[in-house]
């Protein structure tokens, strides 16, 4: 390594270090508040899930409790991997990073490779390790070797996702289908069609939600208890809610378009309400249909009651219907935090309703409060 190379790499690393430091200094109080709030919400979500798996599922079946721990473990590992991938992508592709700046200046490939090699452990430590640690601390039911493998294997698979895919020409779906719509209808269709036809992640989440909606009532046949089935339909509705949150996050990256077109706060929020209701009702319909089919299965050893049907409908509707109540309370572009808040709040609402269904009468007050507290946030976020 010659002296010139050493000086250049030192300068680049120094620049990166100070830029990160300045980034942290900027709005320090805001960042600390955000970090603390996120940690509290995350801890609450973890505690609730942990409690659910041990206190509620444990006594019913140890297998189910174990399964729920595995699900949580792999979910956290997947979130960590996605987060690390996002960080790497930003680091490599964003025009505002030190790496891109050095590349634009014509810095040599060998130096950039060395620079990436030095920074990778930091990215790994900051972005992936916390998720892995939380996963093994709360839900680690495997051997130490498996834990070590889970620490290194998912990050090692990330480079393969950056490989160029074959450019297969295919006829894409045309949004709004070339027809005239009223502004309200266009607002609704533009989002709904993007979720179904343009964004693979939202499509996958909606498909999973539908599948869970159809399948969840049938789990009663095997488990002889309603809790796993109800948990599955809750999970399905939550997936649909997260899909909606992803779409809203994307909306707000390009929101000048709607603002410039004079879309009002009320109109936008109404669209989100309509979309959430549409998805929630479709899911409730699918679940009810499965439930009705279940009634025709002979020799079942579980009593199917009307109150159970109401529970299914409530759980398939509540998580996705909670989205419009929270989405503009904080920046909608922070989808991960929005998802965690959605999980906690919808769990809270669902538990309340399952305990005492007449609490449904409080819904207009919750709605009115949510609308008031989000008032005009469409313009000011």
């Amino acid at each position, binding site marked *: 390594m010659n002296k010139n190379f050493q000086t250049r790499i030192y300068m680049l690393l120094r620049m990166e270090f100070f830029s990160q430091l300045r980034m942290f200094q900027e709005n320090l109080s805001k960042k600390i508040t955000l970090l603390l709030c996120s940690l509290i919400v995350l801890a609450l979500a973890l505690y609730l899930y942990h409690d659910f798996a041990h206190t509620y599922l444990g006594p019913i079946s140890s297998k189910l409790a174990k399964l729920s721990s595995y699900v949580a473990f792999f979910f956290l590992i997947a979130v960590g991997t996605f987060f690390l991938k996002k960080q790497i992508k930003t680091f490599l592709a964003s025009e505002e990073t030190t790496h891109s700046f050095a590349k634009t200046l014509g810095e040599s490939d060998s130096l950039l490779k060395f620079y990436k090699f030095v920074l990778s452990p930091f990215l790994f430590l900051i972005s992936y390790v916390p998720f892995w640690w939380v996963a093994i601390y709360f839900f680690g039911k495997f051997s130490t070797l498996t834990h070590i493998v889970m620490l290194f294997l998912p990050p090692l698979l990330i480079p393969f996702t950056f490989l160029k895919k074959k450019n297969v020409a295919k006829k894409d779906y045309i949004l709004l289908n070339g027809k005239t719509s009223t502004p309200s209808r266009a607002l609704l269709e533009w989002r709904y069609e*993007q979720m179904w036809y343009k964004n693979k992640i939202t499509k996958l989440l909606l498909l999973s939600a539908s599948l869970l909606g159809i399948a969840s009532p049938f789990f009663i046949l095997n488990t002889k208890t309603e809790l796993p089935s109800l948990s599955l339909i809750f999970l399905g509705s939550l997936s649909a809610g997260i899909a909606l949150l992803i779409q809203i996050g994307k909306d707000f990256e390009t929101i000048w378009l709607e603002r410039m077109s004079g*879309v009002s706060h009320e109109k936008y929020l109404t669209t989100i309400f309509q979309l959430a209701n549409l998805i929630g009702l479709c899911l409730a319909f699918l679940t009810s249909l499965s439930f009705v089919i279940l009634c025709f299965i002979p020799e079942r050893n579980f009593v199917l009651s009307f109150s159970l049907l109401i529970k299914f409908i409530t759980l398939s509707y509540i998580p996705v219907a909670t989205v419009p109540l929270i989405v503009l309370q904080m920046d909608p572009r922070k989808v991960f935090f929005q998802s965690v808040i959605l999980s906690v709040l919808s769990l809270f609402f669902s538990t309340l309703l399952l305990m005492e269904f007449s609490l449904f009468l409080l819904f207009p007050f919750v709605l009115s409060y949510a609308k008031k507290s989000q008032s005009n946030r469409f313009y000011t976020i």
Partner: protein
Amino acid sequence: MPKNLSRIASTQFKWLTIMNELIRIKNLRKTFSSGFCLKDINFFTEKPTTFCILGKNGAGKSTLFQLMTGNLEPDSGEIRYNGELMLVDHYQIKRKIAYLPQKPALPLWVTPEEVLQYTACLHSLENMKENIKKNLDYWDCKEYSNRSLATCSHGMQKRVSLAITSLYDPEFLILDEPFSGLDLSHIYSLENYIERRKKEQKTTLLSTHIAPYAAKLCDEAYLLSHGELKKIDIWATSSYEDRLTLIRNYFTVMQEPSKIL
């Protein structure tokens, strides 16, 4: 009685004055926690015009545009369009004003044609298909009109944004650095578009650091410096060359415009 009459007459006169003003900004003030502030901005125009706001980087031009379009609430002061007060939730006024940001972000996985169609639906435009086709043709976007915007370059995306704006041709258009990222042929298209708006008696506000375009296209000019907006009075009567000198001198020696010529 005469006292009352004079009061009524004075109120009516005041109202008529407000009605005649196309845009009026009165004592507008906005302060940020960083210490930056726009101080008592005052501005008015009675007739449709093409004007520019010049200022150094960080002078507060974009903040002023955000305030003018009602996307940011001022600490004090008011903005009126045709006598109507602009507020954050006055979306009916917002429909008449378009603001094209310097880096307009577009939804990446949709096509230019789709995004134009969406805009046309939001504005309930008639003859949607012909209008979209005409605009895509004008801004030379037809070739890639069915490609995802993610695969388009910055200049191509900028042309799509301009096509969106020209699709519904607002009464008041704010263009923030519209020439950046465009190649020469599309710069000419943009110049023609601004000239055409001038002929159609529509107001255009231009923010650019490229002096020749400001000198050529704008009938009025304002300077935004240290949070204050000042009109360059001699701009309207100056020739193209004088305007260029005016800008050059201002930005090199930072002299007051009135002292330059």
